[in-house]
């Protein structure tokens, strides 16, 4: 039987996934990553889930990929590695993903943070891409998402030195949304996830897709796509409900239709 590397817990419309390989600092081996993505894909088609929180433990969010796996890799096995597919599936999840980070998010752990939509960090959080110290480079979006998020100078420094930055620096650089005391990180991430989950699911999905598209296309193409999403929501029940509820000064009841 396969070991379960992820603890899953649902409360209200929020699924919380906890990386649970403490003996290896939550290193993201392929199995672990795959299990995580499976949970996300199940959540994505489950109408009872509105948003997902991913977290680790108090000392480690995730300290990187599994070095034993990497050690055995040859060019041939690297070419046929299934990890890139797993990462692609991660980025295809349409529901919002919030990372709640305490302690170290390094290498693949940091790339997971970069691939999520919102990041709440504890004061103890540290973010880094130490791949360079092992003679390799980030291989799951580390160079690409980081530079789009913090700009070239900090991205270069982090990737080329391999040195981690602390939470205040990450906040200043725009890498994370909020810092709070460690003990409240998961709770506050869940609070945001709860708020998101209360909104119309189709609108949330369209909004996330539109923002992600901004990374991929020119402004004029992006504006056009945004318009298409906007128009596509015009026919939804939830949009009518949302506007009616506003005028009637009552909380809306969304159905996802």
């Amino acid at each position, binding site marked *: 039987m396969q070991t379960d590397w992820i603890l899953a817990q649902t409360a209200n419309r929020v699924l919380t996934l906890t990386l649970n390989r403490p003996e290896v600092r939550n290193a993201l081996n392929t199995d672990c990553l795959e299990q995580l993505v499976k949970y996300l894909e199940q959540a994505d088609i489950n109408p009872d889930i509105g948003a997902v929180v991913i977290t680790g433990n108090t000392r480690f969010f995730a300290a990187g990929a599994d070095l034993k796996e990497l050690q055995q890799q040859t060019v041939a096995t690297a070419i046929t590695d299934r990890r890139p597919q797993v990462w692609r599936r991660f980025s295809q999840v349409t529901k919002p993903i919030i990372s709640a980070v305490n302690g170290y998010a390094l290498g693949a752990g940091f790339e997971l943070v970069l691939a999520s939509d919102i990041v709440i960090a504890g004061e103890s959080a540290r973010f880094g891409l130490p791949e360079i110290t092992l003679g390799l480079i980030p291989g799951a979006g580390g160079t690409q998402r980081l530079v789009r998020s913090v700009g070239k100078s900090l991205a270069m420094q982090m990737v080329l030195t391999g040195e981690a930055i602390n939470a205040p620096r990450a906040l200043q650089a725009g890498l994370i949304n909020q810092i*709070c*005391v460690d*003990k*409240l990180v998961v709770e506050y991430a869940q609070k945001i996830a709860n708020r998101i989950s209360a909104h119309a699911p189709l609108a949330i999905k369209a909004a996330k897709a539109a923002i992600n598209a901004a990374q991929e296309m020119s402004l004029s193409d992006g504006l056009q796509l945004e318009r298409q999403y906007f128009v596509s929501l015009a026919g939804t029940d939830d949009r009518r409900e949302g506007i009616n509820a506003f005028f009637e000064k009552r909380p809306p009841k969304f159905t996802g239709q």
Partner: protein
Amino acid sequence: MQNNAMILTKQENGVLTITLNRPDKLNSFNDEMHQQLSEALKIAEREDTVRCLVITGSGRGFCAGQDLNDRNVSIGTETPDLGYSVETFYNPLIRRLIALPKPIICSVNGVAAGAGAAIALAGDIVIAAKNANFIQSFCRLGLVPDSGGSWFLPQLAGHARAMGMALLGDKISAEQALQWGMIWQVTESDALASTVNTLAQHLATQPTYGLGLIKKAIYSAATNTLDEQLDLECDLQRLGGRSEDYREGVDAFLNKREPKFKGR
């Protein structure tokens, strides 16, 4: 305990006392002493049974800062990198003292000079014997107050007094330090130990977890805006309200009895 111990520790009724112990050198630091202090601090950090930390010096001084005998800076030798010593020893020490979520009493039994003055002022409650004094001696050697000295002084005594102390390096008496708001209390020299002991025993019975949150709030206030601080207070209050000691405190108050705090 080793005979060559430069740091003595004693744990009693929830109070850990760390004594800087190089009395013939006015307890000034060398690298070995830093390492021993670092080990002793681990006890304070890791043991839940420690609910108050007391730092004091043996002999007639509290701490004279860096031991200059450890430095060979005669003309012709390579210039030393004092930044190394600061970033390896002094800065981590001060950061650990500030971050320790338990109250720290510095019992200043005699001269506190240079980094020793900064370490004394890093205590949450500083009690000095009448004969103790504080000296920012760095300016006499062409150096800068380190170990947080240049931060503590303006925070505690204000800009004008900080400048005077740091640029002139004059000896500030315990009484003067008290008047300027740098420390909490001055005692007769022979009453220092018992005063500190009474206070430490008291603190060790208090809601330690809550005291740790208070400490965090107060230190954060120095760099936060009011807005940020209000948010932090909200977070910390949320945590305090979930502690066992809060329930105990309220219950004891409502039932008009003495609370029994567990520190969590």
